[in-house]
Every structure is written in C-alpha cells, then in structure tokens.
C-alpha cells in the first residue's frame, strides 16, 4: 500500500494517538497516586481519592475509546473514503467532553465514579453540587454525540461500498455460500460489527444520561433505578469492549506486514465476529449478578454468555495470530511485540472475567479487587498495549520487516510487561484475599499488597512515559507512518 492511500488522515490519527498517549500517562499517574494512598506511602483526603477514582475511570475508558477509534479510522481509510471533517468534529466533541468532565471533577468535586450510577449523581450528601454532576453528564453526552458522528462517518461509506451492513459483516459468505475470497477484509468486518453494537450501546447510554440530567435538574422526574442500572452497564460494557475490538484491527492490518501472510476473512473469522456482535451485547448482565431483584433468566444468561464470549476471541483471533506467526520470518520490533502482547493480555484477561461471571463466584468476588484485576489485564496488557504497538509502528524506521528492537526498546517493553503483569496480579491476589475495591482507606492487613502494587504501577508509568516519548520523538523526526 502506498503512502498516498492513507496520507490525508494520517496527521489527524497521529495527533490523536499523541493525545491518547499523554492521557494514558496522566491517568496512570492518577492510578499510581491512588495505590500509593491505599498503601499509605502518601496521604490523600478520601474525598479527593474518589474524585481521582472518577477521573481515572472516566479518563481511561474515554482514552481507550479514543485510541481504538483512531486505529479503526486509520485502517478503514484504506478501504473506503472517509470524511476528515467528520473526524475533526468527533475529536472536537470528544475534547469538549473532556473539558466538561475534568471541570466537573476538579472544580465541582464530583466523585460519583465513571459509572454515574443512578441516582448517585443527585444524592451527593453535600460532596458536590448538582451543577457538577450535570456538567459531568453533559461531558459524557458530548463524547457520546461525537462517537455517534464517528460511527455515522464510518458506517455510511462502508454500507455504500460493500452493499449494506449484512455484506460488510460477511453474512453472504456464511449464509449464502459465497466464496470467502468475495467477502470483505477483516478490518471491514470488525468495523461493521463495532459500528453496530457501539452505536446501540451509545444510544442506550445517551438515553440514561438524559434521564439522569433531567432528574438532576427536576428531581421529580425519576427513572426506575434498576432499569437505569441495566442501561448504564449495557452502555459501559459495550463501550469499553468496543475500544478493544477497534484496536485489534491494528493486529489484522499490521501483523501481515511482518509475517508476509495476509489476515484472511475465513468463514470461522466471519462467524466469530457475528458471534461477538451478539455476545458483547448479551453478556452485560454479568455486571448485575448481585442485583437479586433481576429476573433469574437474565442473570443465568449473563453467566452462560460469559462462557461463550471468550470463544470467538480465544479460538479465532489469538489462535489465528499464533498460526500466522508460527514459522514466519517476522523480525520482532517494539510494534509487533506490543501488538502480540495486546492479543495475549486480552485473551488472558478474559479468564478472570469468566470466573467472576459465575454466579456463585460473583457473590463473593464482585466487590473485591479481583474485578479491577480482570479489567486492568484486559486494558493494560490488551487495548493499551495494542495502541502503543500501533504508535510504535506509525513511527518505525523503514519497513516493518526490516526494523529490529534496540536495547532501549527491549528495556521499555520488558519494564512495561513486568510492571503491568505484576500490577494486575497483585489486584487478582488481593481480590482472592477479599480486599474490597474502590475503598480510599485500607486496613493494615491489606497494606503490603497495596505497596507491592504501587511499585509495579510505578514501573508501568515509567515505561509508558518512555513509549510516549519515543513516539513523540519519532513524530518530531517526521518518520514514516
């Protein structure tokens, strides 16, 4: 592929990834502060802890979505004409949302967590004013509208070029017996699936956000709390998973440059993505298994779909990656290493999620640090690793197959791997020891794990800073995207 094919949007994507990298470091620094406070390395007012927790959660989810969206935009642009104006509109709305959210948290002292669970934003007990909660929600709305524009800008040309979402998902290959060679490329299949489920997720999220906003302004308007919780977790689960499903497109597009083996849209691949389309939406009740008033069949569905949800990922993407790499003459560099780590971490991170998705386990584990252990593996060793792999590839020297791994690259990668693996394992072990999550102040018996976790977190922050600096230097030198 020639540079001319992707050049028009490469600048916007590179800028977005630079922003993403900086926000990743900042949000990780906030995480480090929280772990250091729990480990009593530093003193932190509990009210400020919950504000930082809110910023860390909202910021990480947001920037995971932003970096995933930039990756998908970059590679979908290889197949269809995309509107640069729509991308800038998306980015502008996203940044407006960030300003509103940060203002709500650090000026308005909002500390209701990124999940804005109804009716918590409105019953702050004096911790924050209604305007702060309303500003936080408006920030989410701005980001949500931005994402809807983004999916409109992706969906329209994909539908035009591939003859509808059904064909873009490859259903004519699976259900009408068409030759897989006539199917769309993996990037388009993934983009079509994400466009469908994250549009639905965002719309549901927008509905509950508007309901929460109206409730804040006119408390007489109240929505059913259980319905609101279902809507929030449907939106939250779909959105954060969409960030990973968008980022994995980097693996489909970049790894073949190293292996010389194109990633194919086989029938199992197409079926897997159609399954993902359903499972990612049907699995959200595993977040509500402690809500005993939920209908039993929905909770059972959450558990069963949790089992099934890992199959398309583990059996198709991870297995295929192994097959493509096995026996290839790929020369490992920082980009490839991080991308492979991303798929590995994503796959491993699914396992504690499946365990927590079991009703009998969930009853005792869900409010422990087991859960942040799961999603930090998913993100730190999954989406974030893929994003930095994409960034390293964007500023690599020469062709992918020629680039090697310098000593500094090896040190950075090794530090990131050890730091992230250690950090997440401490969360899992603490969870297994019933250490609660989201507590600002910890009992003396939990301090040791907190301190070990803090040290691993420091390694993650340092190595991530090195990754961002390498990317910034690479951009500065004007190296090839």
């Amino acid at each position, binding site marked *: 592929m020639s540079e001319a094919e992707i050049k028009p949007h490469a600048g916007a994507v590179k800028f977005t990834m630079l922003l993403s990298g900086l926000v990743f470091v900042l949000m990780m620094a906030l995480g480090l502060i929280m772990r250091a406070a729990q480990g009593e390395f530093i003193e932190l007012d509990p009210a400020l802890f919950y504000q930082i927790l809110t910023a860390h959660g909202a910021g990480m989810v947001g920037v995971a979505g932003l970096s995933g969206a930039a990756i998908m935009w970059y590679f979908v642009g290889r197949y269809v004409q995309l509107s640069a104006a729509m991308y800038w509109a998306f980015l502008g709305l996203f940044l407006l949302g960030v300003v509103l959210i940060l203002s709500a948290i650090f000026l308005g002292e909002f500390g209701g967590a990124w999940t804005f669970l109804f009716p918590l934003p409105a019953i702050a007990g004096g911790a924050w004013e209604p305007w702060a909660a309303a500003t936080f929600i408006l920030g989410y709305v701005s980001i949500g509208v931005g994402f*809807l524009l983004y999916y409109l800008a992706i969906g329209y040309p994909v*539908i035009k070029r*591939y*003859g509808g979402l059904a064909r873009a998902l490859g259903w004519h290959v699976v259900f009408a017996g068409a030759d897989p060679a006539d199917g769309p490329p993996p990037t388009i299949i993934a983009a079509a699936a994400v466009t469908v489920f994250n549009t639905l997720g965002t719309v549901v999220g927008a509905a509950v956000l*508007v309901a929460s906003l109206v409730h804040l302004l006119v408390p007489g308007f109240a929505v059913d709390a259980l319905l609101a919780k279902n809507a929030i977790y449907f939106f939250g689960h779909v959105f954060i998973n969409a960030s990973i499903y968008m980022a994995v497109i980097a693996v489909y597009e970049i790894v073949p440059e190293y292996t010389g083996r194109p990633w194919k849209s086989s029938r199992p691949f197409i079926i897997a993505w159609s399954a993902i389309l359903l499972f990612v939406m049907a699995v959200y009740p595993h977040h509500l298994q402690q809500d005993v008033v939920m209908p039993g069949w929905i909770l059972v569905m959450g558990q069963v779909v949790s089992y099934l949800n890992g199959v398309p990922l583990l059996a198709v993407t991870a297995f295929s990656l192994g097959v493509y790499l096995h026996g290839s003459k790929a020369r490992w560099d920082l980009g490839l290493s991080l991308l492979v780590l991303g798929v590995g971490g994503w796959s491993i991170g699914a396992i504690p999620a499946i365990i927590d998705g079991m009703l009998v386990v969930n009853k005792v584990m869900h409010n422990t640090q087991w859960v942040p252990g799961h999603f930090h593996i998913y993100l730190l060793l999954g989406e974030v690793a893929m994003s930095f792999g994409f960034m390293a590839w964007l500023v690599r020297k020469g062709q992918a197959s020629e680039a090697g791994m310098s000593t500094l690259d090896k040190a950075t990668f090794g530090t990131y791997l050890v730091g992230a693996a250690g950090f997440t394992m401490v969360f899992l072990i603490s969870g297994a020891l019933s250490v609660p999550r989201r507590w600002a102040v910890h009992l003396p018996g939990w301090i040791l794990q907190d301190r070990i976790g803090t040290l691993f977190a420091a390694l993650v922050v340092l190595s991530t800073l090195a990754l961002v600096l390498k990317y910034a230097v690479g951009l500065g030198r004007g190296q090839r995207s």
Partner: protein
Amino acid sequence: MTRTLFAVLSAVLFSGCVVFRGELEADPVTHMLLQLPALALAGVLLLLATDLRFVKLPAYFANAITLVAVFAVFFWMLPRYIDASLINPFVEFAKFLTLPTLVGASLALAWRQAHPFLRGFLKANAISMLGVLGFLYIHAPLRICNSYLVSDQQRLGYGFLIAAIAVSLAWTFPLFFPSPSETGASQSKTNKVTV
C-alpha cells in the same frame, strides 16, 4: 395520473385533519401521533403532485431547507404550543399552515438531496428525541399540557416509545439489506482505495 392521485390524497388527508379536528385533538395520542404526521404527509403529497419534486437544489440549500423542517418539528414538539393550538385559533391556524409546508413539503423537496451525514444525524436525533419525549411524558410528575390529563400524557409517552422502536426498526433494516440502487456497491470488495 400519479400527480392527480397525490393531489387528491393530499387534499383528503388535509381535509380529514380539519374536519375531524375535534375528535383527533380530544386525545393527545391521536393529536400528536396521528394529526400532526398526517398534516406533514399532506404537505409531502402536495409537493409530489407538482414539478417542484424535480428541482435540483444546491447542496447548501437542500441542507438548509431540511433544517427548516427539523426546526419546525422541534417547535411543534413543545407541549406549550400543542396546548396553545387547542385554545388559540391563531396558533391552530399556524399549525395547519406550517406542518404541511415547512415540514412536509420541505422534506419532500430537500431530504433526498441533503448531505447523507445530515440525514443520518437527523434520523438518529429523531429516534432519540422520540425516546426522550417518551421518558418525559411517562415520568413527568405534573401535567405538561393544561388540556390533557396526566393519564393521557402517560399514554402519549408510551406512544412515543412505540414510535421510537418502530422508526428504529424501519430505518435500521435497510442499513443491513439496502437496495442495490442505494449503495452502488462495487464488484471488488477487497481492493484498497486511493484517496
């Protein structure tokens, strides 16, 4: 022949809305979800009965006219003006005038020529607004319209929700299975494009 049919249908719809005004406006569900759309549809049919339907508009003008229609819809979604149309003959007259012209005829004239992103945005906006209106009317702790009971507005809320679901399905299905004329899909699905 077709033009005459459109003109007759438009006249029938408009006349029906005028003649059965009392019956339709007695219930907010038929007022908002039957009479108002019928008036807009009368405007669509009226325009289709004329040569205006063949007019090629500049892109910016098509977008602007589409937005005029949308803002007219927004206006008639405000409970205050629905209420006013029941007690103020001037507002009632404005309703019968603006819905066929500013909404129906404007959309018939400009919708297909408006930018696809604008159309997509407005469709998404229409669905979410129907949903939000459904929520507001069902949960409102007070009477929003002086002319209708709380129980009436709750029925209207459910009507909006049903409309939101119906419109979602009607607009989503063609995204999966569009007609060939709508897509212009190329033969080769895997070739990368040069932009």
